[in-house]
């Protein structure tokens, strides 16, 4: 297991992390002196602090992360979001955090930038459709944001609501395959407070492209990708399990929990393994065994102690 490298790691891992940091500082200085460095991981505009949240596998090329997206607000095909999101305006933006909290508050993106230092985390992303990526996100822990508004004792769940803008999002203008808009996702409060749960404002060091959920999205690396609500305008702390979009659409296919679990299949396909996304053509295309909790079991398995994960998929 131990694909994750968290603070308690072996010596060899520390070495590679130092190499990692060195490379990064080299890139930063390169950018600062105006050298054009044609690396996929050139230092971005966000100046994110590196962290030890990373995985051994190489990051998915940026071009794939930003052109292969499920974002039904912009269309049903993987290529639709990048094609159809050009008219979307992620600025100015506010996110309202309210519900069962002591200090309900509306944050602008500038407020968030001032309050939450941006850090980089390289996470696995496992889609419920049995493909996966490794993505360098930039953002902050959701727990830090929730700490600012102070959840009340009877808050048990957190609901995330995506933006509703039919004028800018062609997928929201109705039609056959339309979901119930706005898109809603949810977590149990203890899941939301887990240190892994992340609010991303960027990827690969730059602000989130529209097609990836600009300007603010949720990333929950041990759950299937659809849990990661994009372009969030409201975060509500509530007492009851929220009615989430995919779960209401097809409850037997998409559970509320949606933890990555190779032993619980989707009704139409196995979840035992996954296609590794990456621009490699047919013959470099990889397939890897899917790990329980997407490899994050050490950090999150305790959240589900005693729960029947077959029933609560």
């Amino acid at each position: 297991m131990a694909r994750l490298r968290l603070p308690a790691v072996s010596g060899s891992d520390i070495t590679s992390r130092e190499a990692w940091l060195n490379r990064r500082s080299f890139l930063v200085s390169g950018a600062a002196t105006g050298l054009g460095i044609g690396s996929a991981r050139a230092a971005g505009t966000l100046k994110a602090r590196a962290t030890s949240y990373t995985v051994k596998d190489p990051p998915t090329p940026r071009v794939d992360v930003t052109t292969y997206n499920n974002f039904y607000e912009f269309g049903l095909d993987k290529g639709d979001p990048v094609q159809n999101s050009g008219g979307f305006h992620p600025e100015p933006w506010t996110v309202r955090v309210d519900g069962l909290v002591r200090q309900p508050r509306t944050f602008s993106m500038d407020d968030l930038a001032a309050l939450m230092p941006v850090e980089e985390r390289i996470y696995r992303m496992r889609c419920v459709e049995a493909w996966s990526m490794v993505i360098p996100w930039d953002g902050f822990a959701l727990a830090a944001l929730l700490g600012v508004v102070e959840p009340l004792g009877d808050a048990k769940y957190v609901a995330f609501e995506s933006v509703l803008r039919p004028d800018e999002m062609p997928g929201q203008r109705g039609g056959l395959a339309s979901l119930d808009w706005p898109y809603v996702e949810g977590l149990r409060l203890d899941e939301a407070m887990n240190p892994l749960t992340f609010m991303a404002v960027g990827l690969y060091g730059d602000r989130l492209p529209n097609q990836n959920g600009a300007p603010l999205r949720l990333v929950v690396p041990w759950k299937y990708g659809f849990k990661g609500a994009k372009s969030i305008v409201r975060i509500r702390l509530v007492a009851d399990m929220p009615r989430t979009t995919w779960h209401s659409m097809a409850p037997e296919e998409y559970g509320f929990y949606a933890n990555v679990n190779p032993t619980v299949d989707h009704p139409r396909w196995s979840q035992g393994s996954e296609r590794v996304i990456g621009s490699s053509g047919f013959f470099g295309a990889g397939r890897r065994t899917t790990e329980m909790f997407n490899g994050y079991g050490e950090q999150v398995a305790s959240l589900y102690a005693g729960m029947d994960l077959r029933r609560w998929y």
Partner: protein
Amino acid sequence: MPSRRAPVVFPSRLELWLITLIGLVPAGLYFWYGAHNQLGADPVNVFERWLGLWGVRFLVVTLAIAPLRDLGVINLVRYRRTFGLLVFWYAVMHVATYGVLDQHLDLRAVFGEVTTKPFLMVGLAAFVLLCPLAATSNRWSIRTLGRLWGTLHRGVYVVAALAGVHFLMAFKTYTVTSVGYAAALFVLGAAGVVRRVRHNGRRRMSAANEPMRRPKTTG
């Protein structure tokens, strides 16, 4: 006897080969793209779906040929076998892509999926049923099997129904594409069944009144 009866125009071999070759261009093109990393982030999935889509397209064409003739639009019956065989070849490539490129010949995974997932069971059933149809798509089989041949090849309506269901299930939601093609398959398949039933009824009543209207099945 069937083979000597006709004022039927048989297409030339060249015509049939040309249709087949042109029909295989979408597969060849995407295979080339995929092998040269031009199919985007998830090339195997794109190719797999592409082959399925083209199989469905040729199945729609195959099933549309009889109604188009009956409505007096155009008579392409002489090309129907070739289009039917294209359906089969696309199905073969679709299944092979699933097994080889997608599942990397992991037979346990394949077996596990096709025996438990209705989506794949339905698709596999359509493919299995296509095989005897393709294998008997020759004049020798038509002669040898006689009436049985016609009965066997009515299985194409079952293939249409199965393929339509499989195609619908391949999408996470109902889309214009999935519903459109599935509806075409269901309607054309049902029309074929209705045509057979009515035709058989008429034939029982008076075989003499409608001579040679469907030379292939009256023998």
